C-alpha cells in the first residue's frame, strides 16, 4: 500500500488532472450568495475546473452524498407518442464521478444504500453511477457536537468504505491507497510525493485525536429488540413526536434514506418520467397508490426510527444510521434521534 502526500496548494492541479476522466465533486460554498457560515455546506455539482479551492472543509456538507447517486430529481426516460405508439428515450450515460473529500460516515452510508439497491432488484439508475464512482475520503478532524459515528462502528478517520483516504497534516494532505480502484487511480496520477515516516505518524495522531472528539454516544445493544417491544407503545411515540413538524429535512438529508416517488410529466404528446425524493415523514406518503398506512404523525416518526434501527437490522443485519448527525443539527425544532433511542433503551423490557 503506497502512502503519498500532496501540498494543499497543489490540490487544484490534482483535481484538474482527475477531472479529465471524472466529474469532480468537491465540498464548497456555492458561489458568493453565501450560504453559509460553514465553508463546506454544499457539494457543487458538475465539472470542477480546479479554481476556487476552498481548503477549509473540515466539516461535513449539508447534502449527503446519496444526492449524487439518487438525486433529488432524476429523469428516468423521455417518451413521445407517435403514429406507431409510444417511443422511449433513455437518459445518456453519465460521466464517472469522483467525490473528493467524502467523510468516512458518508462513505459508509453508500455501502448501506448499496444493500437496498441490489436487494430485490438491481437498480439501473443508482448502480452504474455508484459502481463507476471513486470515493476520495477525508479524515474528519472537526466532528460536530451532533456527530455520533463512533457508536455505529465508524471512525472519523476510518478507511473502510473509501478508495483513497486523505488526512490533513498541516500544509499537506497525506494520501493513502485503500482499494484497488484507488490504487489504479494513484498509478495514473502525477505530481505526488512519497510520505515520510513523520507524515504518517502525524496522520495517525490526527485520526486518533479526531476519534476522541466524537463525544456523543448511543448504546445500540439490544436496541432492535427493545424497539420491537416498544412498537405498540402509542403513549411513548406520541410524546416523542409531539414537537415534530413533519417536514422532510431529516429524511431528505439523511445519507441512508432512499424513498422516492415516481411522476410523469406530459405536455401534449411528449413527456418524461421522473423519480424524486419522497419522505415517510409526509402525511401524503404512498397516498397515490393506496393509503398512507401511517395516518398519525407519531406513526410516521416511529417509522423513521424503526426503519433505521429495527427493520434494516432485521433485513440486512446492520443499522441504517451512520451517526452523521444531520437530522439533529438541521432540525428546525431540535428533534433529537439520540434522545428518542435513549428513551427506548431506558424502558427496559424483556430483552436485557
Amino acid at each position, binding site marked *: 500500500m503506497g502512502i503519498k502526500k500532496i501540498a494543499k496548494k497543489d490540490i487544484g492541479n490534482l483535481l484538474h488532472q482527475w477531472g479529465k476522466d471524472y466529474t469532480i465533486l468537491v465540498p464548497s460554498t456555492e*458561489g458568493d450568495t*453565501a450560504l453559509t457560515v460553514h465553508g463546506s455546506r454544499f457539494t457543487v455539482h458538475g465539472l470542477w475546473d480546479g479554481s476556487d479551492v476552498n481548503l477549509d472543509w473540515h*466539516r461535513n456538507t*449539508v447534502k449527503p452524498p446519496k444526492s449524487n447517486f439518487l438525486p433529488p*430529481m432524476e429523469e428516468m426516460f423521455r417518451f413521445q407518442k407517435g403514429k406507431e405508439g409510444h417511443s422511449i428515450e433513455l437518459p445518456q450515460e453519465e460521466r464517472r464521478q469522483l467525490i473528493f473529500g467524502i467523510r468516512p460516515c458518508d462513505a459508509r452510508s453508500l455501502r448501506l444504500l448499496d444493500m437496498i439497491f441490489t436487494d430485490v432488484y438491481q437498480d439501473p439508475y443508482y448502480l452504474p453511477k455508484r459502481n463507476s464512482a471513486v470515493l476520495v475520503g477525508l479524515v474528519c478532524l472537526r466532528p460536530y457536537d451532533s456527530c455520533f459515528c463512533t457508536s455505529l462502528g465508524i471512525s472519523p478517520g476510518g478507511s473502510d468504505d473509501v478508495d483513497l483516504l486523505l488526512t490533513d497534516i498541516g500544509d499537506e494532505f497525506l494520501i493513502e491507497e485503500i482499494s484497488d480502484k484507488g490504487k489504479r487511480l494513484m498509478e495514473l496520477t502525477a505530481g505526488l510525493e512519497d510520505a515520510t515516516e513523520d507524515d504518517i505518524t502525524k496522520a495517525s495522531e490526527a485520526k486518533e485525536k479526531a476519534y476522541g472528539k466524537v463525544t456523543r454516544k448511543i448504546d445500540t445493544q439490544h436496541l432492535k429488540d427493545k424497539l420491537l417491544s416498544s412498537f405498540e407503545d402509542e403513549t411513548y411515540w406520541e410524546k416523542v413526536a409531539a*414537537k415534530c413538524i413533519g417536514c*422532510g429535512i431529516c429524511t*431528505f438529508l439523511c445519507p441512508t434514506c432512499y424513498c422516492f416517488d415516481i*411522476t410523469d410529466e406530459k405536455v401534449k404528446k411528449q413527456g418524461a418520467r421522473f423519480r424524486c*425524493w419522497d419522505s415517510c415523514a409526509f402525511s401524503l406518503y404512498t397516498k397515490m397508490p393506496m393509503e398512507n398506512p401511517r395516518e398519525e404523525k407519531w406513526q410516521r416518526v416511529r417509522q423513521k426510527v424503526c426503519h433505521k434501527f429495527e427493520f434494516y437490522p432485521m433485513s440486512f443485519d446492520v443499522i441504517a444510521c451512520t451517526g452523521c448527525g444531520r437530522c439533529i443539527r438541521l432540525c428546525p425544532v431540535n428533534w433529537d434521534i439520540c434522545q428518542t433511542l435513549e428513551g427506548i433503551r431506558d424502558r427496559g423490557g424483556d430483552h436485557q
Partner: protein
Amino acid sequence: MNSDGRMQQRLRHEAGALLEQDKVDRIIGFEPGSLKFTTTPLITKIKDDLDRLVINPFIVNNLAVFLPGLKGRIAIVSKGCDSRSIVSLIQDNKVSRDDLVIIGIPCPGMIDLRKVEKLTGKDRDEMDDIIREGDKVVIREGIRDEGYGITPDPYPLTLEVSDVLFDNCLACEFPTPQDYDILLGEPVASRQSAAGESVESQESRVESRGEGDSRAKRLQSEASSERSVSGLQTINYRLLTRQQRWGFWRKEFRRCIRCYACRNICPSCFCKRCFVEESEPQWLMPVPRWQENLMFQVIRNIHLAGRCTDCGECERSCPMNIPLRSLTMEMYNLVGELFNFKAGMDKDAPPLMTHYEQEEAEDLIR
C-alpha cells in the same frame, strides 16, 4: 439574576399554577435543546416537566405552529411575533381564544447563530458561551483546534446586539405580545433599526442620491450590497431589474430540495392539504426544479397575504439557506401599503383576504 432569569422563574411558577388549578390541559413552552445554544419546544401535561422551561436569547421557534393540531385548553409561551400568529389563527377560526392562556414574553430579540458564527469565524459548537448583556453579546472562548490553521482570536469577544439579532428581530415592530393573559416582564418598545428600515425610506434614500444615467448603476450596486451579515442576502425588489431578480432566484432556488420545512414550520400554513400536494388538478410538479420551487414559494406567499407576521421561521428553518424572507417581506410590505393592514393585530377583525370593503381601491379588483 437577569431579566430572562426572572421571567423564567415566573414562567415556571405561573405554568405550574395553571396546570395545578386545572385551568389548562397542556403547556407549550421551550426547554433546553440537545445542542449548544439551542432550545426545543416543550409540549407537556406533566407538572414535573415545567422545571425545564427556559427563557433565553435562543427561544427561536414560533410555538403557534402547534396550536391547530392540539385539542383542549392550552397555555402557550409567546413572544411578540408569536402572539400575532396566534391572533391570526384565531381570526382564521383555527384556534379559539377561550381555550388559550397566552403567557407573553416582552421579547428583546433572538440571537441568530449564523451571524455569530460568521462574525467569530467559529461554529456554534465551538463556542463556550454566548451571553447577552444589555446591548452587548459576549462570546467566550471556543475550543481551539491547534495546528489546523485557526488563529486565536481575542476572547472574550464583545459584539453589538444589533449585529447578531435575526434580521426580522431587528425589524420588529411589536416585540411585546399583542394579546396576552400573563405578561412576564415589562413591555419592550419597537425596535426598528437600520436593518428594519422600511422600503419607502430606502427608496427615498436612493432617490435623493440618484441622478441621471448613473442612477441605475447605483441602484444595482446598492441592491447587491444589501447583504446581511448572516450571509443571507436580503434583496429589495424595487431596486432590481426583472432580469436581475430572475437571476437571483434561479440561483437560490436551485438549491431547494422541497423538504417543506418552510411550510411546516409556518403557523400560517395551516391547510390540511397543501395545494402543492394536490394531484387533481396538479398545480405544481413535485419535481424540484428551480422554476417549480420558486413557484411553490410564490403561491405559498400569496396564501400568506395578511397572515404572515414576519416571524422569520421559514428562513431560519431552511436547511439550504434560501433567503425566503426577501419574498415574505415583500408581501408583508405590500399588504401594509395596499390595505393598511398588519397581520395578527386584532382577533375580532376578519381575515384580510376573506372580505371586501367598498372603499377599497378599485384597481385591485379587475
